[in-house]
């Protein structure tokens, strides 16, 4: 009798939790559905038929959007920029964050706050000296000339997050490793990085999101059309006065797809528990 009461109480509890989660989910999914449904409508239908189900499904929009926005080129570019820059951010930020979290050295706090400060000062037109610098370094219209500023832009946030997580890792694991004769680099690579998998995954998600969606810097820095990122292709559908919503939404859906895939892969790593990693070490 007692166990049954607990069971039914648990079921009610679960039901309440799930309905709350579902409510939040609906609000998150609705814009997505709207985007998908609009991408299958015709231009005049967007404004006249408010229903989520298009009168006829225009799958062709996706093919037109892909061609018109020249995604063939831009998609590949963005893939390169995002993968290299995110790798760079993860590698350099985790090295620096480990040092900030664990080592004692002169100017540590100053350097850390220096990184932090660059997230806070929204200088208008900071792209101008950057552009002139890239011209001097002959990096304008090269991929590396875009990737390096992207890495720079992603570093502060990544260092900030990773430092916080490294500080939370118990010190005894490292001490044990040090006694075993492991170098700092070895500790970083074999202990800290595996332990910080959830944080690394989080940082990877956030930085890929920002870099994939970036176009302001690319716009200023890149003049060769064949080097432009994917967001630029989406302009085609947004005229000065007229926006072609179906094609724009089809383009946006295509552009969002890699992000969703990256997230789906990475989110598994967020929940790879630190304790599991600790046991292995």
């Amino acid at each position, binding site marked *: 009798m007692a166990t049954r009461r607990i069971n039914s109480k648990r079921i009610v509890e679960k039901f309440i939790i799930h309905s709350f989660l579902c409510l939040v989910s609906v609000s998150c999914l609705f814009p997505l559905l709207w985007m998908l449904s609009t991408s299958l409508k015709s*231009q*005049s239908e967007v*404004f*006249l038929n408010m229903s989520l189900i298009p009168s006829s499904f225009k799958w062709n929009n996706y093919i037109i959007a892909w061609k018109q926005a020249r995604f063939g080129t831009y998609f590949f570019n963005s893939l390169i920029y995002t993968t290299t820059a995110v790798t*760079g951010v993860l*590698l350099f930020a985790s*090295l620096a964050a480990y040092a900030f979290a664990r080592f004692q050295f002169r100017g540590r706090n100053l350097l850390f706050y220096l990184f932090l400060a660059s997230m806070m000062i929204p200088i208008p*037109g900071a*792209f*101008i000296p950057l*552009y*002139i610098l890239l*011209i*001097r*370094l*002959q*990096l304008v219209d*090269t991929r*590396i000339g875009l990737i*390096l500023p992207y890495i720079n832009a992603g570093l502060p946030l990544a260092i900030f997050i990773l430092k916080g997580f490294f500080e939370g890792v118990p010190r005894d694991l490292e001490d044990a490793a040090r006694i075993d*004769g*492991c*170098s*700092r*680099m*070895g500790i970083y690579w074999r202990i800290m990085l595996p332990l910080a998998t959830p944080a690394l995954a989080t940082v990877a998600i956030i930085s890929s999101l920002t870099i994939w969606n970036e176009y*302001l810097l690319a*716009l*200023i820095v890149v*003049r060769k*059309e064949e080097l432009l990122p994917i967001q*630029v292709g989406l*302009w*085609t559908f*947004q*005229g*000065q*006065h*007229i*926006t072609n919503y179906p094609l724009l939404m089809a383009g946006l859906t295509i552009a969002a797809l890699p992000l969703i895939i990256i997230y789906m892969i990475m989110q598994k790593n967020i929940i790879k528990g630190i304790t599991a990693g600790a046991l292995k070490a």
Partner: protein
Amino acid sequence: MVYPCKKWILVIYLFIMGPILFVGCGQDKDKEIGAKKKPLITFWHWWTDRQSILEEFADQYEEETGVKVKFVLSSPSGDLYKNKLQAAALSSTLPDIIGVWGGGEFLARYINAGHISNLTDEMEEGWKDRFFPEAIKRGSYQDGNQWGVIPGTYAVPLTVMNIQIFYNKRLFEKAGLDPMNPPATWEEFIAAGRKLRAKGIAPFTAGFGDLGLAEWFLNSYAWSFLGEDNVRATWVGERSYVSPEWEAAFDKFVEMRDNEMFIEGIAIMSNKQSEQAFANGLAAMAMNGSWAVNVYYQMNPDLEYDVMSFPQDTEAANPVLLFGGTGICAAVNGKSSQKLEAIKFLKWFTDKERQIEYVEKAHTLSANRNVIDGLSPVLAKFAKGMERIIPDLEVEEKNEVREVLRKGIQSIIIGEKTSIKVLEEAQRLKDKLE
């Protein structure tokens, strides 16, 4: 164990930094080769929906003359385009032809820094005769202008525009109004609004959130109540904003608000939202520019509408004029080595023959005044409107003061401030800035 790791970091470090340091040396060879090729004129713009049309003209020009013109869509919006131009100007990498907005402070800065060619001589040789005179004036600077620009014409007008009021014929009929005789006086305008509201139709929409439109509405009536000289006197600081005439102009918004003329949420509505509302029949009248003809066609091809001028207030001393001027212009890079080629192309492009074709494809008003045949009735009304636009005063109110006026209009619409309060605020700021 320690050493290999340190080396490892150094390797990564060199791997990243190496290219930067090495690429830095001597790569100017490409440019020399480029100069020997046949002339290539680069043309930057931000007119997203015109890129393919412009490319067709470029092909045609190359066929005729052998000179290649490359149109580069450098930015999706005007704001970003400004950033791009600025970065290019400061690094001396502006293209041969630059798409610009006509006149004012924006262009004056580029002219004063030597980036823009003075086209006066070319214009005086008969080039300017083909344009609407007002359009030429917008790209010119007179003697003693407030920015210290050497007098002359600097921008070639490509399109023109003006602002009028569109009205939905079906909704007018529904409210018992004659779609052939839209309101001509302010009283009729307000009365029409009441009738529409009584039928549950929002009478008036406009993109007052985009700010420019609110100010243009205001300017039409400021001109009507104050006249050119008094507006100029206010802007140069010789006459106060706190005056009955300015108050009368601002009270137009108060009257419209009190008679429930505005569509809900007009104070922050963007022009795009406003266009959607009008195209979907949610509002009977819409203040908008000549470009909207194409917009409404795209949004709702069956929309039956016509266009009317701003209603005249019978108590105002002067006729009500329309806000208008150049839509887009082209300027020639003053530092380009291909100035003459660039000018030659622009002359070719602004020719009547080409402009007729351009207007057909882009559904817009050409700055070439000879291109009026074959316009749709509504566009023809806009072309006629070019004769009644507010003249260019060659002075501009300070941007800060303009913002207070524009924002003040929003505050009036939501019932937060009175006309006189807005005017006092504007005058106070103006006094502070002087």
